[in-house]
């Protein structure tokens, strides 16, 4: 099928103002901050509604081109999952779908479109006494829905009842263009009828005997295109008390955070090394390095909080119980030794920022992340530290109520320095592969990792995923080539 025909048909669907083949625009989508090989899409389109999305998918099925969905309006992309793999790809940019459809205080849920960013949503919710469960200090322009679809770890592990949280129900177009709703949103009845009967699409499970939202999540846009989703909210506390404990020994902090999590004593909870904490607090390189040098190697950050009339009573009980645990464990950690203003910590825990914290030190970052159990964290840290001596940020995030840990290693570098970039590229893949060989579970296999990850996983997984892809995207039009969908 000729390119002209595809272009003409797309113009009919989205209008000439919402399609581009401007080389500058295409160039922008041809690469990201990862080392994944560059390739330009044919066009970029900005649909305005779900009908246009559906027509585009159906067109792709009939004219045999590929669709790569993206959601964030601007800002850097990181992991190679939106770079075209074949010559016949278009980018479907969902950033114009940016309605906050419904904020429901009573049922603690929000329904949003994919273009809604953290920078927009957080203040909106705050006014209503609500908060979204966020990844660590997200970029303001980052799509909230994409973060949830990509299973980015959230910073309050006790609220992560399932590794899929905070994602609840979705409206999705599968690869053949058919519309579907997952969870209780499926029905009986339309969303309007469900609302009339008092429902709020808060149960992600189902419909009935399968949970397709789990197939869409983590799929890098290769199973379906989500047009709205409901996300779980929590109430904004009236008091937040920040703890910043430092140690040269991460095992001491890991042991203590385990107790905090086991008994559900705190909200936000994470461990970062000195460099990452400094990147989260400061914006300027020299200030980052200065602060990092003044901190202990390992930093445990946690927050206890209370709400309403009995907020102080809750803080007293939590503080008392935490103090008892520290006494029992003979921990000599002190919250008073921190030189960091607690408001600065709350800022990065509660807010989004236009300046991505991972790019503040040197302008570039390659992040290696995976899931580990408790015992292997220190082994993985030693492995990475052995290979990357400088400019290494480390972030350990307990997830899923303490049943596993997101381990992240941020290699900071200057991307404009070719020699440095080449060195990092080599280190990035070698270290990643060494980690995989040591049992690190790369459960979000982006870009260059994908092939390596699936080779180290049971073949039955690969075969089952291909069957799933065949069911929901029979003509392989949605982001072909990602994950194990390489044919």
């Amino acid at each position: 099928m000729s390119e002209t025909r595809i272009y003409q048909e797309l113009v009919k669907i989205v209008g000439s103002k919402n399609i581009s083949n401007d080389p500058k625009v295409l160039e922008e989508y041809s690469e990201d901050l990862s080392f994944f090989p560059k390739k330009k899409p044919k066009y970029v389109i900005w649909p305005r509604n779900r009908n246009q999305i559906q027509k585009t998918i159906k067109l792709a099925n009939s004219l045999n081109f590929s669709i790569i969905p993206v959601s964030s309006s601007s800002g850097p992309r990181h992991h190679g999952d939106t770079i075209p793999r074949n010559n016949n790809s278009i980018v479907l940019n969902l950033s114009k779908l940016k309605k906050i459809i419904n904020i429901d205080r009573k049922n603690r849920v929000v329904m949003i479109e994919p273009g809604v960013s953290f920078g927009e949503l957080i203040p909106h919710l705050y006014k209503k006494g609500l908060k979204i469960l966020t990844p660590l200090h997200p970029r303001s322009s980052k799509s909230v829905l994409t973060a949830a679809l990509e299973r980015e770890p959230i910073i309050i592990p006790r609220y992560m009842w399932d590794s899929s949280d905070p994602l609840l129900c979705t409206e999705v177009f599968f690869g053949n263009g058919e519309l579907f709703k997952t969870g209780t949103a499926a029905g009986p009845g339309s969303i309007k009828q469900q609302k009339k009967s008092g429902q709020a699409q808060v149960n992600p499970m189902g419909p009935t005997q399968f949970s397709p939202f789990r197939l869409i999540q983590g799929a890098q846009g290769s199973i379906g295109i989500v047009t709205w989703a409901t996300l779980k909210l929590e109430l904004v506390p009236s008091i937040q008390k920040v703890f910043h404990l430092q140690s040269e020994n991460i095992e001491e902090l890991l042991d203590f955070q385990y107790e905090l999590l086991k008994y559900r004593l705190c909200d936000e909870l994470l461990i970062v090394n000195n460099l990452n904490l400094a990147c989260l607090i400061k914006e300027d390189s020299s200030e980052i390095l200065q602060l990092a040098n003044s901190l202990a190697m390992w930093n445990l950050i946690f927050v206890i909080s209370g709400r309403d009339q009995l907020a102080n009573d809750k803080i007293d009980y939590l503080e008392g119980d935490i103090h008892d645990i520290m006494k029992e464990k003979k921990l000599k950690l002190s919250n008073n030794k921190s030189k960091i203003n607690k408001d600065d910590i709350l800022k990065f825990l509660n807010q989004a920022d236009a300046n991505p914290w991972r790019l503040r030190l040197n302008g570039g970052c390659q992040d290696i992340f995976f899931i580990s159990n408790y015992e292997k964290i220190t082994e993985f840290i030693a492995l990475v530290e052995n290979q990357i001596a400088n400019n290494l940020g480390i972030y350990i995030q307990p997830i899923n109520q303490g049943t596993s840990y997101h381990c992240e290693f941020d290699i900071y570098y200057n991307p404009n320095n070719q020699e440095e970039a080449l060195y990092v590229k080599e280190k990035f893949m070698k270290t990643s592969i060494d980690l995989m060989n040591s049992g690190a579970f790369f459960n979000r296999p982006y870009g260059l990792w994908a092939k390596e990850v699936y080779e180290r996983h049971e073949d039955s997984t690969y075969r089952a995923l291909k069957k799933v892809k065949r069911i929901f995207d029979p003509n392989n039009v949605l982001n072909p080539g990602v994950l194990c969908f390489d044919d």
Partner: protein
Amino acid sequence: MVLEKDIFKEFEDIVGIGNIDDGEVITNVYAYNWCMEIFNYMEGKEPIPFSPIPKAVVLPSSTVEVQQIVKLCNKYRIVFKAQSTGLGPWNQPSTDNSIIIDLRRMNKIVKIDEKNLYAVIEPYVSGSQLQVEIMKYGLNCHMPGAGPQVSPLASATSMNGPGFTSPSTGHSARNVLAVEWVLPDGEIMKLGAYGLKNNPDFFHGDGPGPSLRGIMRGWAGTKSGLGVFTKVAVKLFPYPCSTEYSVKGYSPNYDFEIPEFMKLYVMDCGNFKKLETVMLRVEEQEISFMCSYLSGFAVMAIFSNSIESLMDKIAIGQMKAPLVVIIAARTQREFYYKQKVMDFLLKKFKIKNIIGKIYTPNPTFYAEALRSNLGLHGFIATGGFQSTKGVADTANVCLRSTKSNIPLKKGFIKQGVIVNDFGEGTWMTSYESGHYFHMESPTMFDQTTEQSVSGMAEYMEKSNQLDLLKHLGAPFFVEGTRMHELFGPHMSNYHIWLRKIKEIFDPNNISDSGFYITPQNK
């Protein structure tokens, strides 16, 4: 129908002599189950408590044996139905060209991972066995409403999964980590980190990439319609109070020492509107171990062990909108704080706790609450009960569903086919500190009379139709082709996708589809 001798021998070679039986006695016993009569009636069959009789029962002792059995079933086109603790009709084969895979020899707690807060279990480990072991680490598990005697693996992978402690322990489907699963074609699938070739472990169940938990189950499980689950890792939770557990006496009159920091509240909210407000506020405070709305009759039942003891509680049965809350704490500070919150809410909403004033339950109640053993009280009045409804979304839709069901149920009570609970019989619980709710309507009937069985079945059908008509969510028991084809067109045509999953993962339709969905051509 029995297995041909050669085929019997092939199965026997897999599991060993004595671990397969095709005798009339054994196969007939396996054809019986509680509530089978209702499902038979609903399928237009004779309302007897027997399913088709399986050709044989095989008892594997390992995943490899399960795999070999499944492969043999594919070879000879014999349907298999897997079961563990085996409660209810969902364990029954839908055809006599079937064998039962009874997993009772796979009964090990494979691992208790204290530091990563999960346990790995085989199919025949019961909830009570698991709980006793993990209490040693100050941990607790989620148990389904069916009780501590059933298999947590079955609940997590294959069945439903609401429980009385759901406010603090969630739902079985959401507590699943890694899984070992024999697919209908005999391939062994290991979900999540357990599928790693280097250092496989159970701490995570999703990925790499999309989570295959999405086809494994939904709000409900596939009930052996999509393979056999041989191991599952389930999340563990902090035990809510001291793990000292002192019980004396003989069944059913035990004496239990109530743990130091545990308190029960039973409050009449007067009406559903206020009940919803109070329930949401209690749950927002994240203080409850258990938080359920139970109809007056159901409150009477959870405190009773016999019809006689049920009847002497008429006074508490007159509450219009009772809310049952248990708070429990590990430390005195935590307990004082939780009590203070409850005191504050009681005062704010002008409601009273009847416990210790109007009624004081036997201490055994607290033991049953900790053991999630309250469901058994549904059997007290007639020896038989089943639930209708099963919506799970907001508190509001649950209460609407409850309300709309009352006149319908009263009609059947009037006919004398089900027990008179004033039409209100309901259990509704919060999940995950009030993030969602579910309700069901337990109904007592007489399994021994055809009139009562058919009445109960007709009531269930009408209740399903009401849910469809009023958009009150999908009930629990939307399973089996007939129900999927009834509900699917009203629910995003999900049945078409579900059927595609069945067809592609079970090309020979060997994993019993009776409580799942049949392929298109069957």
